[in-house]
């Protein structure tokens, strides 16, 4: 890691290369001309999935998307994340693409970004001045920009025990094609129910492509606490979420009106499935 950081500091124009499935496409498109690339994909400290003694799940930034979605712990404890990772691009893409790379694009549509937002994930960054740990939500600063200072690397993503244990989650992606496509609109929901499985005790809700950055719907989340887990609540929650959204007005991929429509449709599917999953979850 220190070699990579040194290389980045020595050459401020240099870019971090992980799987290359996003960056190299941009380079081939004529962007970033003449800039050096620092390859971090083989740095061992950036790879791997583990669970610490407190039950927090830590995913190395250079873990490939296939490694994420095929990992049995992720499938068991974070099924929405496994699903999100599996829906990026195609099988060949996922053998190269990394979860860190997916987040660091800063795209409002990035599948794992949305799933991780609903899980209240945190990111660990390492730079010349040491380590920082920040909430994923603050990591997204501007459209396609993330909070990486000069020389900083994204080391890992951490999902805390209290953000996933006892929750049911689902990730839903709507896109024109079934594969090899960015999301037209996507939603991740993490629901926790009371012991009678009737009332919502906690909600994590995130949408992609409804705002310049990935969106976490805090108002909608707070509103849902204490409400019964039914279709009526889902409608109210989504109405609230729509207030928090700011889809772009003249987007070539979909009109603003269509995006609001999709928010309701995709959001309903995500919330219904998350609630159904939450009913199946055994409180550990």
């Amino acid at each position: 890691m220190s070699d990579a950081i040194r290389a980045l500091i020595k050459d401020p124009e240099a870019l971090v290369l992980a799987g290359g499935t996003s960056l190299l496409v941009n380079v081939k498109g004529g962007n970033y001309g003449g800039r050096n690339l620092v390859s971090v994909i083989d740095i061992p400290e950036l790879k791997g999935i583990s669970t610490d003694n407190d039950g927090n799940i830590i995913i190395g930034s250079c873990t490939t998307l296939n490694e994420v979605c095929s990992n049995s712990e992720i499938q068991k404890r974070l099924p929405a994340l496994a699903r999100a990772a599996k829906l990026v691009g195609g099988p060949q893409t996922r053998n190269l693409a990394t979860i860190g790379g997916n987040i660091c694009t800063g795209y409002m549509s990035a599948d794992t970004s949305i799933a991780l937002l609903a899980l209240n994930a945190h990111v660990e960054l390492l730079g010349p001045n040491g380590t920082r740990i920040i909430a994923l939500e603050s990591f997204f600063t501007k459209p396609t920009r993330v909070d990486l200072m000069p020389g900083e690397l994204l080391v890992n993503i951490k999902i805390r025990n209290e953000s996933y244990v006892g929750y049911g989650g689902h990730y839903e992606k709507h896109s024109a094609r079934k594969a090899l496509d960015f999301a037209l609109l996507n939603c991740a929901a993490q629901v926790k129910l009371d012991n009678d499985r009737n009332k919502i005790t906690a909600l994590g809700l995130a949408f992609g492509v409804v705002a310049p950055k990935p969106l976490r719907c805090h108002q909608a989340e707070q509103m849902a606490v204490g409400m019964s887990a039914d279709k009526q609540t889902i409608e109210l929650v989504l109405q609230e979420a729509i207030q928090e959204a700011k889809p772009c007005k003249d987007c070539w991929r979909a009109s603003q009106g269509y995006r609001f429509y999709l928010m309701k449709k995709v959001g309903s599917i995500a919330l219904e499935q998350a609630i159904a999953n939450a009913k199946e979850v055994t409180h550990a």
Partner: protein
Amino acid sequence: MLKIINLSINGTSIDLAVDSRESLTDTLRRLQFTSVKKGCETGECGACTVLVDGKAVNSCLYPTVLLEGKRILTLEGITKPNGDLSAIQQAFIDEAAIQCGFCTPGLIMTAVEIIGEGKRYSREELRERISGNLCRCTGYHNVLNAIEKVLDEMYVQADNSNFEKTSNF
């Protein structure tokens, strides 16, 4: 900038001088492994699919300099030395899974990865497994038939308890 790397292509170890900007597609094609096709060069069509250490990747997005010590497999590597076709290639022919043939090398390399996993897949799951390879001619129906056929034959032949990940097909 030129770098010297050592890698294995279809079983043969080779020392290469490559420009650090050259993609694996370009490297393989200039070494006459022209089964590797350029469809989009941006990782969206799968025509350039090869196996790197057994994993299917879009070689157009892989800078060759990063492949020190890795094992590459292309279509040329699964045809037998005497020219006989492997089972998967024969199945593609028998099931009429080839029309213009441009997507075929990429599809076959993806199929090789699938077969090498030693798992059974439903037709729906197989559709998902080949979703990284675009074909404008066949409609995928016969492609799926060909892959299913090879998977079925292997399960009939193989002793399941001894089944290993293998590149024999």
